[in-house]
């Protein structure tokens, strides 16, 4: 897959359709892939990666990229195309300046999950159907894909691309996933139980604002959480109220625009 993507990207760079490529490159470690922009075929060869760790949703980066000259090539997984469409309906980027290639996704592997299973020294990953091979400095280890999935991929809503100029590989189907099971469970609780549940969830919050930064729905240039006058801009949460407040306000702001891309759960 990675080879096909690089080959196609090179063709499009060659014939001048696009002048740069938005994709992924390895981060500090093999499992923390970061989004990156490539401008030449050499850069693509040297840095471009696409593997089971490439969970990042690239659609938000288009806001900045389309402000530059020329067209940008972007690779979108099925769930990314939903946020791509959402940003498009809000006129957050210029569709004319984007060439989108849809790529299939079988669910991404969570580096955290691997670490929890005692895997360390990860240097690479290979996927083949339902089996995942993780290369480490201590040798290879095999896993079932479903055992090491990202949390959000467990309730994947669709394998079907809703927006693209071109597809590599087969388009999938919209899935009948169980993504509202947890909601139904919560709704059946009493207010006391619900509040206890949310307190235990929200008490993890350290107000790093990473969920906001990575969210494709949170694309305001001036964010309420950055406004010192708002009274909720301070980073360190002084007590439980501020954690609640931050999450309620953020949920309120993205209500109706969230596309379940799950980036916030990875942050």
């Amino acid at each position, binding site marked *: 897959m990675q080879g096909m993507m690089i080959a196609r990207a090179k063709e499009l760079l060659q014939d001048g359709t696009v002048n740069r490529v938005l994709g992924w490159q390895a981060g500090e470690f093999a499992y923390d892939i970061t989004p990156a922009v490539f401008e030449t075929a050499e850069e693509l060869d040297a840095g471009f990666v696409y593997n089971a760790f490439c969970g990042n949703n690239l659609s938000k980066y288009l806001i900045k990229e389309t402000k530059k000259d020329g067209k940008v090539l972007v690779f979108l997984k099925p769930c990314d195309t939903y946020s791509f469409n959402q940003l498009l309906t809000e006129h957050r980027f210029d569709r004319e300046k984007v060439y989108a290639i849809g790529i299939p996704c079988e669910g991404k592997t969570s580096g955290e999950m691997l670490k929890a299973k005692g895997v360390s020294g990860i240097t690479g990953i290979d996927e083949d159907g339902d089996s995942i091979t993780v290369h480490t400095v201590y040798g290879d280890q095999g896993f079932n894909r479903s055992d090491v999935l990202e949390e959000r991929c467990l309730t994947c809503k669709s394998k079907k691309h809703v927006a693209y100029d071109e597809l590599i590989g087969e388009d999938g189907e919209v899935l009948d996933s169980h993504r509202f099971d947890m909601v139904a469970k*919560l*709704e059946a609780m009493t*207010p*006391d*139980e*619900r*509040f*206890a*549940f*949310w307190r235990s969830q929200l008490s993890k919050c350290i107000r790093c604002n990473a969920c906001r930064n990575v969210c494709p729905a949170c694309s305001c240039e001036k964010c309420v959480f950055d406004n010192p006058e*708002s*009274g*909720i801009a301070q980073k360190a949460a*002084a*007590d439980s*109220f501020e954690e*609640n*407040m931050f999450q*309620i*306000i953020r*949920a*309120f702001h993205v*209500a*109706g625009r969230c596309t379940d891309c799950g980036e916030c759960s990875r942050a």
Partner: protein
Amino acid sequence: MPEVNAYKPKIVAFCCNWCSYAGADLAGTNRLNYPADVKIIRVPCSCRVNPMFILRAFQRGADGVILCGCHPGDCHYTTGNYYARRRMTLLFSMLDYLGIEKERTRVEWVSAAEGAKFAATMNEFVSTVAALGENKRLEDLRCKE
């Protein structure tokens, strides 16, 4: 003889300047009784109420928050109360999802001529909230006396 140390809920009522605040005024001039636990905050329009105001009220120890505005279609600014209605529907269902009982929050339309409705609404709302007891979930310990 009323009980001296009986629990009294703290209620914050956001009232729009054009209808509900005048309605509250009318309730007063008609000498209708409504609980003194209701603290009225006058706002230019019900859509002036940012969801954060509601959260702030809970933070500072309110046990219930009620938002009063003009009847739909009667807004002084034509569409302000529609915005308020949409926002509050969303916020209140979200608060309910978080575990803040939906009886603690309410939107009510009170016109300037409905002094009696204002008093009746407040009486009913206060007794509902009083039955639920103190709001301990969203309060901020730093704001405690």
